[in-house]
């Protein structure tokens, strides 16, 4: 088992590297650069703040300061010249230039080896620090909501899979499907309007992760104090994730219950509840692992909509703002972290598969 795990991790590294490179190159395809809009837009208005020429110079200084004036990669295609393309077929020949190590990718990758994801163009803080902060804001939220979702999904699916629960099953399943087809922003909005509105019920504070408190508090205390703020986002997240998970769990439970060995167990006269929990659940969890392992990174990536509505500064919002501002180091940093989370969760899923079903392990060798 350990050797398998080790090999799996070893294989992951080159794949990850290829992915990271691709992500880096793809991100730079976005048109525009950081600060370009703000610098050029300062010029329009009811009086002029500096000439066009000076603004261009300032933009060039910004590019040089952040190394964006360098070529992107070791080799670059020369851009197509318009005249050349229309006159003959020479545009079909790739025109490659070798840039040596003075290129953006090399500098970024070299920094990555020292464990740095670069610095944000906007605030010049290390990207890792920014990411850590953003993820830290949402980690409690996500863990609690995920745990709640799993528990609820298990409870619901076990309770509706029993033969007696036909009515409950119909109602619950339909309800879940309905819930899932509703856009998340609407769920959030409705929750706010119903539960945090003086015109309706005012149970929870509307936004954020708490207020400014004089004096520092310990981590746990501040968590308790801020708990009321987290209730609505947690409900919203659970409602968003619950239907899909429950449905999968239910389907796979039902499939397992029809298997032969379960019938044998039932024939032995074991009560249905016990059959489900003791025998069926373990096997039924197998396909659910896939769903869960897909959910985990999605949770790290955050849910922009929920973060926006409840004013929680998480990774999702960070990603959107940095894309809009073209803060490339942050964009690439976030995507790289998500990719790593994805890889790890897939490995975990594979291991769980192997643990749950010994036959697969044999095959992998």
């Amino acid at each position, binding site marked *: 088992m350990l050797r398998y795990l080790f090999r799996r991790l070893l294989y992951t590294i080159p794949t990850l590297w290829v992915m990271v490179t691709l992500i880096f190159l793809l991100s730079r395809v976005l048109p525009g650069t950081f600060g370009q809009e703000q610098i050029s837009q300062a010029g329009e208005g009811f009086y002029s703040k500096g000439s066009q020429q000076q603004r261009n110079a300032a933009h060039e200084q910004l590019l040089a300061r952040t190394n964006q004036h360098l070529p992107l990669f070791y080799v670059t295609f020369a851009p197509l010249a318009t005249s050349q393309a229309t006159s003959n077929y020479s545009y079909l020949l790739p025109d490659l230039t070798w840039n040596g190590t003075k290129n953006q990718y090399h500098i970024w990758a070299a920094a990555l080896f020292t464990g740095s994801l670069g610095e944000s163009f906007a605030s010049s803080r290390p990207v890792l620090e920014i990411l850590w902060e953003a993820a830290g804001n949402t980690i409690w939220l996500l863990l609690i909501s995920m745990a709640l979702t799993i528990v609820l999904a298990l409870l619901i699916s076990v309770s509706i899979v029993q033969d007696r629960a036909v009515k409950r099953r119909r109602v619950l399943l339909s309800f879940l499907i309905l819930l899932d087809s509703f856009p998340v922003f609407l769920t959030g909005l409705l929750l706010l309007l119903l539960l945090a509105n003086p015109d309706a019920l*005012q149970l929870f504070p*509307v936004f954020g992760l708490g207020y400014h408190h004089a004096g520092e508090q310990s981590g746990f205390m501040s968590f308790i104090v801020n708990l009321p703020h987290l209730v609505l986002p947690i409900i919203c997240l659970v409602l968003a994730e619950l239907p899909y998970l429950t449905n999968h769990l239910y389907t796979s439970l039902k499939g397992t219950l029809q298997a032969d060995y379960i019938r044998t167990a039932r024939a032995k006269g074991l009560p249905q509840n016990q059959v489900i929990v003791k025998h069926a659940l373990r096997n039924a969890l197998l396909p659910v692992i896939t769903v869960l392992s897909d959910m985990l990174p999605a949770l790290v990536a955050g849910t922009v909509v929920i973060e926006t509505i409840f*004013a929680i500064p998480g990774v999702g919002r960070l990603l959107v703002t940095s894309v809009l501002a073209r803060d490339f180091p942050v964009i690439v940093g976030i995507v790289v972290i998500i990719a790593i989370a994805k890889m790890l969760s897939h490995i975990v899923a594979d291991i769980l598969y192997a643990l749950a079903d010994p036959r697969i392990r044999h095959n992998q060798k």
Partner: protein
Amino acid sequence: MRKVHRLLYSLAIFLSFCSQPQRQPDEVRVRLSSDPQTLSPVNYSDSNGLQVINLLFHSLLGADLEDDQLKPVLAKSLPLIEQKDSVTLITYELREEAEWTNGSPVTSDDIAFTLKVLKAPLVQNEMMKPQVAFIRDLIQDKENKRRFTLVCDGFTPEMELLSGDFFILPAYLFDPENLLKSIPVAAFTDSLSKLENNKNVKAFAAWFNTPAFNNNGQTLQGSAGYLLEKWVPGQTLTLKQKKNWWGKEAKASNLTANPKRITLQVIPDNTTALLATKNGQLDVLSDIAALEFDKLKSNKDFLKNYELHTPQSYSSVYVGINSRLPKFSDKQTRQAIAYLLDVANFIKVTQQQYATPTVGIIPPNVTAYYNTNLKPYAFNVTKAKQLLQAAGWQERNNGWFRTINGKEQPLTIAISYKAGNTVLESSALIFQQSAAKLNIPVQVEAQEGNLFNQNLKAHNFEVFLRTLTGNPFAFNFTALLHTSFAEKGGTNYTGFGNAESDALLQAINTAPNPEQKALHLKKLQQVMQEEATFIPLYYQKERIAIHKRFGNAKISGLKPNYDVSAFELKQ
């Protein structure tokens, strides 16, 4: 089961207590729609950043939101301006009381240092750098440490404003090793390439381009009345009133630091912010959606605690037509389009009544310059039809056609705007319907912000809808309307202008007195209306709610529409 119920009830009661946290009355809580990118006083790029930096640092001059007038802040009085040959000399004297956080006085050394930082190469100053490029040198008065003269290139009417519109940095805190002291200001104007290899400049850039000068309350200490206590990115910015602040003795009504603590809460979504205000979690809310604002007006519970304000703002919505395109190069065609803009309905649907139609680029509340002899374009299909016919367009079953350069062209209009702006989107759709009455097909296109701006700069558009934020200070429209800015990449997107209008713009800038200036500006409005290339539709009214326990809010049409440092607790 009963136990569970009891637990739930008690939980609900507990939570309802949590929902109304205790508030300190002398703390003002303001909403920001997004986190400032940086609080660097020489490199801020957004209005949120500016609002916060204004509470930490002072500039020489500043607009007082009480009456929207330019007033001295760190300067003792408005500057003395002399024009000499090709240069302008602007002489300032600083307030005697003015001092930094550590008690040392603000002197002309600090001003010189600030200019060096703003002009230096390698340093994070790109956003503000172009704005002070016109200042060549600074001459310090030998006898008076607080007196100095700025030497500026040429002359423009906004020079007075711009010469006082940058935040003054404390040299003792920002450059403790005096790295820039030995280099004169003039050196930063002439050849930057030499300075790029200067050891001191390099060392300063390495020291300055760090997060400490972007977000740290320990270093970001200016002469204004507040200190940055804490910045939790994406959540809150907390500012604390300085003890024994010098401004209290200055006896100037625009130097204030009244609230003990100011908290700026980042809430991106408008609905959330509105609910938070209704809950009493916020004291100030601006940019309230028009329809919700109307509802608040009749909400008694809300009015018990909050006061609503609607100052006339300086932001307008305008339509730009690409006059370079052959089909729109004709004046009458553009006028026809202007008659198809149903401004009354734009205002009714998107702004309720919170906007004023305008004849031109001058806001209607600037009565001295607003041309009251003109009438704004009003929706008129017959007029539009006549104009199109006069321009040589022929109406057929499937639309309008005209032969341009030997080729028959249909009249189609693609109208673009920045995606996500519902006000502009609704206006574009209304225009589409109005144009359909004349059988003109209109394509409505929402474009992502960056893409939209790039298309404008590349002249890759037909008609666009856009907002423009102005101010009452200089009325120099060269960048927007002069033909020298009409090439690709320039800020005159519509291609407005000819030799005559260029001369008019020049005349506005060199007008010797306000009467002359008014004459030229009124002429400009008339020319712009006739040309119908750049068509301002209306000026918006801001919609603000402020908690009733505060007075002296200094409500204004200028952003941020209120001066939070002036808020006073009512007795």
